[in-house]
């Protein structure tokens, strides 16, 4: 049984079809990225998954329970953040968590609150009023409330907003750890890099339709290129071109098509043999390339997405 299953889901808001004919499945232990630019319909989809709005057509099942027809059973195993996690600012972090734990039917509330707070790194500030939290702390509390009932499905809408780089990495590690424990995670984002680092699978949403879906592993394994910084770029370009490599010049750097690690090693060897110093070899977004190929878009579009 799929943890999350969307079948033919559409949503009309006013006269516009904001989301059209979505079909997705998310399995246990899988982190599913939901990628799309602003206004693509990510939040709308997530609102439908957690039962905040009802689909115009189609059905959404969580662990086999229809969200519309049997919301109590469907939502019993869901933790969610929708847009910003707005919490009760006049309550303390602990009171907020107790509040949600009661609604989720958690048994040993005090213990569970402590556990979850520790997991998101908020244990020492838990008894402060939320209005005195920083944005990042609120975000952490948001994750804590999503985890409070030990859900089987975690639905997160752009969860890394407001986190510093360290916090972001911590967050990614947390998500990966949760997935290893068997949780299914559905996470929306408009950052390709974030999805790449966090997810197993990605669906690309544009204009309310899924235009592509793929495994991250498949994408990264396919064609890519490297960026080189060398002592004599002109000569290096000539040398590589003579050896049959596809080379482009971008300012002081060279862009060389290299489809795997063996190819990269061959390129470097060729340059060093000709007495050219190699200062830097940087992987050049193999994912991005294949991503563009996948979605059939020009790089200008991709910039808008990044």
């Amino acid at each position, binding site marked *: 049984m799929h943890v999350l299953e969307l079948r033919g889901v559409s949503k009309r808001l006013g006269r516009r079809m904001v989301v059209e004919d979505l079909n997705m499945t998310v399995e246990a232990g899988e982190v599913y990225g939901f990628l799309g630019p602003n206004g693509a319909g990510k939040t709308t989809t997530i609102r439908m998954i957690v039962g905040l*709005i009802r689909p115009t057509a189609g059905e959404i099942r969580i662990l086999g329970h229809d969200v519309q027809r049997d919301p*109590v059973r469907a939502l019993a195993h869901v933790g969610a953040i929708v847009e910003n*996690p*707005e919490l009760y600012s006049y309550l303390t972090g602990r009171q907020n968590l107790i*509040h949600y734990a*009661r609604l989720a039917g958690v048994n040993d509330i005090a213990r569970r609150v402590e556990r979850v707070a520790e997991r998101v790194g908020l244990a020492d500030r838990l008894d402060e009023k939320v209005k005195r939290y920083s944005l990042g702390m609120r975000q952490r509390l948001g994750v804590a409330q999503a985890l409070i009932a030990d859900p089987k499905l975690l639905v997160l809408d752009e969860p890394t907003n407001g986190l510093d780089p360290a916090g972001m990495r911590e967050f990614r590690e947390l998500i990966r750890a949760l997935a290893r424990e068997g949780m299914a995670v559905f996470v929306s984002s408009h950052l390709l890099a974030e999805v790449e680092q966090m997810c197993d699978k990605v669906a690309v949403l544009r204009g309310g339709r899924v235009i592509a879906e793929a495994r991250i592993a498949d994408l990264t394994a396919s064609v890519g290129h490297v960026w080189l910084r060398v002592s004599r770029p002109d000569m290096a370009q000539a040398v590589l071109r003579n050896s049959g490599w596809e080379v482009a010049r971008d300012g002081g750097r060279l862009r060389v098509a290299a489809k795997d690690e063996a190819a990269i090693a061959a390129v470097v060897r060729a340059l060093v043999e000709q007495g050219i110093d190699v200062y830097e070899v940087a992987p050049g977004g193999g994912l991005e390339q294949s991503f563009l190929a996948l979605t059939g878009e020009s790089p200008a579009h991709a910039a808008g997405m990044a």
Partner: protein
Amino acid sequence: MGTLWNVVRNEWMKLVRRRRLTVVAILGLCVVALFAFGEYHRLREAQNFNPVQIQQTAIAQMESERTQLAQSPPTAQRDAQLRDLDQAIAKAKADLAQTKARTASPETWRQQAQAAIENAKQQLSQMPSGPALLPSQQAQRASLQAEIMENQFRLQHHAPPVVWPQMNSWEETVSFLGVAAKTFIPLLVVVLVADIVAGEMTDGTIKLLVVRPVRRRTLLLGKWLVVTAASALCSLVLCGLVWLAGILVLGTKGAMSPHWVGVTYQFVTSPDQPLAVTPVPDYTHAALLPVWQYLLYDSLWIAAAMVVVASIAFFCSTIFKSAMVSTAVSMGAVVIGLVVTDMARHQGWVRWLFPTHLNLMSDWSGEAALALQHPVTLGLGVLVLVIWAVVLLAVSFIRFGRQDILNA
């Protein structure tokens, strides 16, 4: 059931920590202080008022007038004036004697009450009886009977009439609450309740509330239970504080003063005067309550009416997404309702508006019927309030159950 209890605990936790409760508490204390200060002021006024002295001054003035008049040349007109003055002086002296007797011996009122009973009985026996009475005669008969019962109650329960400049804290509390039940208290309830759902919409917290494995109607029911309980509690506390302030300023005397309940009225126009409406009281189901008991019922009925006000504000808070709009509309409903029910009070349809019945005790006592000039009973008042609450709540629940939560 367990889920509902958890929702109730949550909502209570939030309610008591919100700033609105503090605002309500402060405003409530202001209302109590207003009452206490007003009563204190009136008490000071009453203390400066010495009836014996005032009556004596009046007599002295009349006597000096008489001496002056006696010195003027005698005419028929002068003699008539002198006779009038003499009569007035004699009456004033008798009044003074009564006042002095009352102050000297506090039990004189018993004889007076007894005399009033005898007098009323005599008048009744002289009046024509039977079904063919004029409305004015019926009204007179009824009020004579009421007077007899009232005086008997006083004698039986040792409840002397309280006449100015004496003040009865119980009566003062009752009359203040009568006003407060239609103005201050509903507004406080509105402040407390009107953002209970709309506030969560405005803040966006509704999202993380609704995504739990709890039915929306359970969430809403829990919220309703909490706000109505809080409103009833707040109004009871307020009534208690007003009573306490009255006791502290004016003392506890007069708790047994009689109060009518269950008086019904018929409003008849006699054929010769089609414009004048005569209220004909009917005391068949009426009873007298000591004022302390009346006050107790009053507080309970006010609390019940505030449950309805809370339900109306609750309705607004589920209909409007902005806490500000919801508060404004609920306040408008109370204030405009108050004005409309006052301006159009002789129209029959006013009986179907909720602000008419916020002081349910006046429905029970018959004062509301007198003011509206239409038959009004406690039963009607309760029925009207229940209809308002049930209809609006039904709309709230249906709407909230289906609503797309989009912009929160």
